[in-house]
């Protein structure tokens, strides 16, 4: 298999690297997304990630396959957490391995951009004075 897709309570960069790294690929591009401690000048106390898991895995699979079929990627890992997280915690890891580093960067950026648009995962930000579902309203 050339793709590793996981939705889990805990994910690590090492997991993604261990999967994609092979002696045939010179370059691996990785994106690591972490919880920020401040959003729009407000202190974030915690986050909740909810997920429609079977569909999320299918959408992640579409993204991964596109990078392999069309963008020159040999192996790709897309990992995303669910559940409660604190500022600083890692919520998403994407690692793409290719013989050519430009392809690895392009695929990694495509994967995170598309994940944020299409994969059914929802983030609720908790502040000292309330909580909001991110991006729900215009």
């Amino acid at each position, binding site marked *: 298999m050339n793709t590793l897709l996981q939705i889990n309570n805990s994910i690590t960069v090492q997991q993604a690297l261990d999967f994609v790294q092979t002696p045939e690929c010179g370059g691996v591009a990785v994106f690591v997304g972490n919880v920020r401690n401040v959003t729009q000048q407000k202190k974030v106390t915690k986050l909740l990630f909810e997920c429609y898991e079977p569909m999320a895995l299918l959408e992640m699979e579409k993204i991964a396959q596109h990078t392999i079929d069309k963008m020159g990627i040999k192996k790709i890992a897309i990992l995303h957490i669910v559940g409660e997280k604190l500022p600083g915690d890692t919520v998403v890891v994407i690692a793409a391995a290719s013989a050519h580093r430009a392809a690895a960067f392009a695929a990694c950026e495509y994967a995170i951009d598309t994940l*944020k648009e299409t994969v059914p995962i929802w983030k609720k930000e908790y502040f000292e004075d309330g909580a909001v*579902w*991110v991006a729900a309203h215009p």
Partner: protein
Amino acid sequence: MRVLLFGIAKDIAGAPFIMAEGITTVAELKVWLYKQYPALQKLRSLMIAVNKVYAADVDVLKPEDEIAIIPPVSGG
């Protein structure tokens, strides 16, 4: 038919799924949802997934389909 709800849509409906009857297309489901839960009209977008795939307004719904309301996603 059973309709799954997530994120803010689940909060608006107050339940992780709801039952809808007499609906045959995605467009009809949206009209019904907006009437039942007017707060859904205020969202930035509202997508319907049928059997885990984004559906178009003209798509037909069958009773055995797995139907889900997808409010604006915010993963990553």
